């Protein structure tokens, strides 16, 4: 069985130095792309909630060509600890 999407988001963050919600979405597309919760709004929510819970940290911000704000996140030690403890099949 697939892991819950928020668990996978956090696990993915252990494999990259930093990522924005768009990049996280692309990495998850093969697994969850056909499901209705697979929206940009959801992934922004996953990232911001994981940050509010102290598992991710800010890793910069930039404006893209169309003037849209892109936020980057990185995983911290607490986040890594949670992944190694609670990620299924870990």
């Amino acid at each position, binding site marked *: *069985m697939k892991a*819950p999407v928020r668990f996978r988001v956090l696990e993915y963050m252990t494999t990259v130095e930093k990522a924005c919600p768009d990049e996280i979405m692309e990495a998850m597309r093969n697994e969850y792309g056909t499901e209705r919760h697979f929206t940009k709004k959801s992934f922004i929510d996953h990232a911001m909630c994981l940050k509010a819970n102290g598992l991710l940290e800010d890793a910069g911000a930039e404006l893209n060509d169309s003037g849209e704000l892109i936020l980057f996140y990185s995983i911290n030690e607490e986040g890594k600890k949670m992944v190694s403890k609670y990620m299924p099949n870990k």
Partner: protein
Amino acid sequence: MSQAVVGGQNASRLKADLEAKFERKGTVHGAMSGMTYGLYSVILGLATAKAPFATAPLIAASLVAIAINDSLAALWLTGLNVMQGRGKEIIRNLCTFPGMMVCLAALFGGPIANVAYLLGIMYAGATYAMPISALCPVVGAILSRIFMKQKISKRVGIGMTICIIGTIIVSYVKPDGNPQNFYLGIAFSLLAAIGWGAEGMISTFGMSMMDPKIAITIRDAMSGLSILIVGLPIIGGYKLFASAITQPEVIGIMAIGALVCATSFLTWYNANSMCGVAKGMSLNITYVLWGFVWSIIILHESVTGMVVVGGIIVTIGAILVSVNPMDFIRKEEA
């Protein structure tokens, strides 16, 4: 890690706006959770004052009422998740360790705390049961000290003392009516605080990784199902259950109560997830004060000055146990 902000002041301003908006949304959710939990408590009191609950033995009435409430709340929440395409996520989360911990926590929060809380409302009245049950962060701190070896800081100790003083003030003057059962109601309200305190402690295992919309669905489903499958056969409560769900007025009130309850828990879990557990819990605990407001508006109950003062003191104490006030000041300055 150093943060690069590319795009100058515009990007910085947009980032600050977005984060402020997110936290504001969390604060609104937290405030709503307190308001709706106070309302739910009053609606539940209203439903259980009607037949068949009013004429049934109190333990059976409270178990059946909570079984119906939590199951209906789980149905509302499952419906919301399925509509938003998260149906499979419920099963996926259930198969994780944090998901299983939410199930275990639900046993303390549902069959034990929710039932005891309702018995507290039935025996002592909602205006007394609510402030006593708000001692749950105090119990959580004590249980965490015993089982998780977490230290009780000076601030938490002061908050606990304030809570106990508030509780004594609330329960010092008995209401008119049946004073014998009043103290039984206070005892059950204390048991509710113990159950919710235990639930809070157990939920700390990895719940920050879970989507709150899923966590609360699992919690309510587990609570409702455990009473339906295990609790009701033990007390022989199926007859009362069948009688209650076939009475349109009772089931109508309970369906509204369950929707309000589901909204309360959903907004509380959302607030915890969006602006941190400390702030979420502080906002949620205002349900005590909201309960007074709803009791006056809906039940036309007279609330004594002692109860209001005690309720405010318990609320302040519970907030102090849950959060360091300096955190708010530091955040404002940042």
